[in-house]
């Protein structure tokens, strides 16, 4: 059972590493806000969804980068 859990944990760590270092990962704080607002939120064509996305970017920036 311990081996199964250990293997499962290793897979999780590997997946996290892949996700974290993929070229599409979130940029560092000095580029985060403009990336989030102008690249990430661009996928929303509904105005209200877009504005919610922009507000979320600002919240994330304040929470994690200031």
């Amino acid at each position, binding site marked *: 059972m311990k081996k199964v859990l250990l293997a499962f944990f290793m897979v999780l760590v590997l997946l996290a590493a892949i996700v974290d270092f993929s070229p*599409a990962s979130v940029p560092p704080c000095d*580029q985060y806000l403009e990336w989030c*607002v102008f*690249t990430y939120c661009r996928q929303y064509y509904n105005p209200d969804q877009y504005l919610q996305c922009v*507000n979320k*970017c*600002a919240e994330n*920036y304040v929470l994690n980068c200031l």
Partner: protein
Amino acid sequence: MDKKLLCLIIILAIFPFSGYADLKKVISIGSDDINYRFFGVAGAVLDDQGNVYICDSKGSFLRKYDPNGMFIKEIGRYGQGPGEFSNTISGLYFSDGLFVLDTGNNRIVELDQELNIKRYIKLSRLALSIMGFGNNLYMISRIPDRFSFEVEIRDREGNYIKSFFDRRPVFIERIEQSKIGQAISLIYSSIAATVERKTGEVAITFQWPGETIEIFMFSKDGEFIKKIVSDHIIKYDFPEFRLKGLPSNLRFPDKSNLIMIRSIHSLDEKRLLLEYWVNEYNQDKAVKENEYILIVDKNSGQLVHRELLPLKSGIADAIKNYICVISNEGDVPEVVVYRLDY
């Protein structure tokens, strides 16, 4: 006056401002067929022959369709190597060739019209969008150490030439300069720009306008030419309450409007097209939304035509009387080319 005649006069007076009367669908690309299926369209452009190029960010590919919307070619897959794109492609531009802004791989990819890759231009800074004319590439990017944006000119090898445009909307000055205020400043000082394909003239506007629409005209070398001022279609001033802090911490007024100029396009040497959102809010909830195409005369700044655009879509490109619209909503994302006759 005869009632019928009066009705006719009223209808004729209203007609230019009603519905999608002058917007005719030319082609629609997007279906379940493998060559027409999209996952997240990030950019679409028309070349001078009417071919349509579409880049899909989620699918990491670029496709070419003929003027009838028939599939011609596809290139790309996810990756960082030659012929590969990231899944954060954020734009496509046509100017004597194609330019794809591959944000995830920090590079611009230049291709010919047959989708053969000509070169990669490595980026040292995050570019928000790209345009081009002649040997110049124009990139909108953040001014280093400031909370606003500029246009950077580079040559086609990627070498820096100069930057221009350091203006911000007037209402930004009312924001307190706290850390949160700086973040809000960055969001609300964003700009949209376009390059005229024949002359290289650059037009820049603020995406969040104040009480008028200001459009700044520059030469292809970044020299200021003039400012065009155009009126809103409703009485408007940027809502003050949005400037004081994060919207989630604010008390919203009962009703407000918020206008955004999502994109600007040079149709020809005389006309600019603005993609113009009007969102009506009650408390913090959007209760009514309309998206318009506004056509503005470059010389006078006069609004010469306005047209409703189908909701939940965005304009990717516009040239002459053709408008290329992306819709990622619904089961099948699609790109639609409209002809605007007015």
